């Protein structure tokens, strides 16, 4: 049962065979002070511009509402560490190529880079991309790679909802529940973070 739950929880499958171990980017970070890690430097395979851009993407997908959004949760920093340390080299290349394609498409469709676009253009652009990835995902063969925006969006959701902000502020979190039982639920009650 734990087995199955763990698999269900794993929204992103990182598989394949190992080609060579890279240095661990996470080791260069003082994780006791993760809250201080800003997006003003390169992280692993990611340039500081890419980290900045990804945080804006995260903020557009998960905006600040009455709870903090993707940027406050340092979603891009997490994505950069995860991809740099955990992805197989081939998958790293696919993801990094996807980021380039993302910027190229944004420039082509909207005349400027994502960060330079207004909030509403950013929103519209990501809606376009999401519809495109949904159509592609539906029709693609299982051997075809995932759409680059599908991967970006999945990582944003993973990074946000497993962050302290996501798990405890957007979701509800009980460190020590102390019991398991069925409870009443009404629309609007938050889901549990894990």
């Amino acid at each position, binding site marked *: 049962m734990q087995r199955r739950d763990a698999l269900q*929880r794993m929204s992103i499958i990182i598989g394949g065979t190992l080609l060579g171990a890279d240095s661990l980017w*996470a080791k260069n970070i003082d*994780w006791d002070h993760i809250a201080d890690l800003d997006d003003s430097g390169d992280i692993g395979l990611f340039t500081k511009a890419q980290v900045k851009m990804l945080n804006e993407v995260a903020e557009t997908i998960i905006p600040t509402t009455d709870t903090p959004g993707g940027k406050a949760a340092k979603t891009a920093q997490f994505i950069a560490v995860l991809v740099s340390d955990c992805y197989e080299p081939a998958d790293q290349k696919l993801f990094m190529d996807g980021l380039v394609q993302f910027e190229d498409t944004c420039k082509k469709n909207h005349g400027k880079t994502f960060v330079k676009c207004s909030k509403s253009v950013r929103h519209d652009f990501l809606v376009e991309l999401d519809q495109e990835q949904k159509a592609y995902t539906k029709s693609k063969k299982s051997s075809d790679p995932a759409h680059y925006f599908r991967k970006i969006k999945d990582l944003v959701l993973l990074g946000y909802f497993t962050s302290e902000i996501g*798990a405890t502020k957007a979701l509800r979190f009980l460190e*020590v529940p102390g019991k398991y039982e069925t409870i009443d*639920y009404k629309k609007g*009650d938050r889901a549990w973070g894990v």
Partner: protein
Amino acid sequence: MAEKYDAIVVGSGISGGWAAKELTEKGLKTLLLERGKDVKHVTDYDTATKNTWEFPHRGRITNEMKATHPVQKRDYPYSEFKPDWWVNDLDCPYTEVKRFDWYRGFHVGGKSLMWGRQSYRWSEFDFEANAKDGIAIDWPIRYKDVAPWYDYVEQFAGISGSMEGLAQLPDGKFLPPMDLNIVEKDVAARIKKQYGGKRAMIIGRSANLTQPHNGRGSCQYRDRCSRGCPYGAYFSTQSSTLPAAVATGNLTLRPFSIVTQILYDKDKKRAKGVLVIDAETNQTIEYEAKVIFVCGSTLGSTFLLLNSADQSGGIGNSSGQLGRNLMDHHFRCGANGEVEGYDDKYYIGRRANGVYIPRYRNLFGDKRDYLRGFGYQGGASRQGWSRDVAELNIGVELKEALTEPGKWTIGITGFGEMLPYQENRVTIDKTKKDKWGQYVLSIDCELKDNEMRMRKDMIADAVEMLEGAGIKNVRPFDNGSFPGMAIHEMGTARMGTNPKESVLNAWNQMHDAPNVFVTDGSCMTSAACQNPSLTYMALTARAANYAVEALKKGNL
């Protein structure tokens, strides 16, 4: 001069911990040898109270971890949450003639720290199965021989569960059961009705405490068990058997002690002790004892016995059965689906347990085109943020939707019995050595026709039961199963009455050397379909009692 003890126990996992407890409590000065490092209860559970966001990769393994753990990485237990409890595969390689996933933990407590805690008794059907089917050899014991020992170990270990009165899954001495959630309760009622009571869905029986027990705290429903429990709320060597053994004053625990050989005295036809390599210094040390309990995990113990037989001219393997009849459970197939309604219900807590559907196939007059049967494990829950919300793209609406729970879903996974086959075996591969200069194990094992036919039922029955219970969009799944994956490996030093066909007798005593007892999974003559650890506990306590009585009578 070798140090002398009354008893030596090889391995400190579920079986070794029990052996150490029983032998020391009966007054034997006991040396407990563990090949890995020490792990102190609570203080060494360094990640037990960390939250997900405190892990740089939120639990996922890095390329650096994969490089040193090419086997352990094949499945989810090896994660960033507690990686040092899984072996570095490069230090201790093995040969896979066919794919066999061998998950190991070298440390005090062994896999008792990381186990799934599901605890089920075997029934009379399981102990008489080989004889009735004419498969392999008969078990030398029956349910009545083990029943009092199940009582005994359950009462000490603390097993939570419900009384069900099922002949194929005997009730035990349980702590109060955990709760089924409302969907599980309703589905259970529908299954009962649909099959006229012939199939049941019950709460899992788990070695998690539902109330304080023997000075240990009760489960807090955090679902962080596999990192070690700071409340001591699940059974492990550290939480349960080791403190009891230490309290007697009769225990010497020696970590970093790799037992490479059981030393045999040809004149007395008895084992006289063991040869140990210190894992840190590589020094060789000899220890002597009147009785030796081998509890080093199924394949760990089998390697030791094969290696010893080599050195002693075949002692311990006069039957030729040592290393043969390797079994595991096959699983990873079943079905899941969506539950309509219950939108006004949710749950609180993270229950590290689920539902169990006991075996019903080839029992009570049912007859299939394969032998034996399977059970299911599973559970119902509401979807979380990782679900797909097809109608939403990005932004505020998506965020709001994902912060609420989604639909209820339910899934069940079959756990099937694997038959003992002579040719599913392990041998010593003398072309390779491990970090400590020891030869390695070669594993040649596969699922066969009986298992593959059973899997069809495991999938079809799951679909039928869920659909019958009103579940929507029921999807079958088969993720494939290779031996080893269930981490229920067993059978390579089987029990039996005839020394020509078996390695151990009815008391887990080696036919060739009466002062050697093997009580881990290697002793199993068949595999049943229930999680096996509780049976290892019962057989170990039973064998220890017998050994001490025999020692007192001067029979060892």
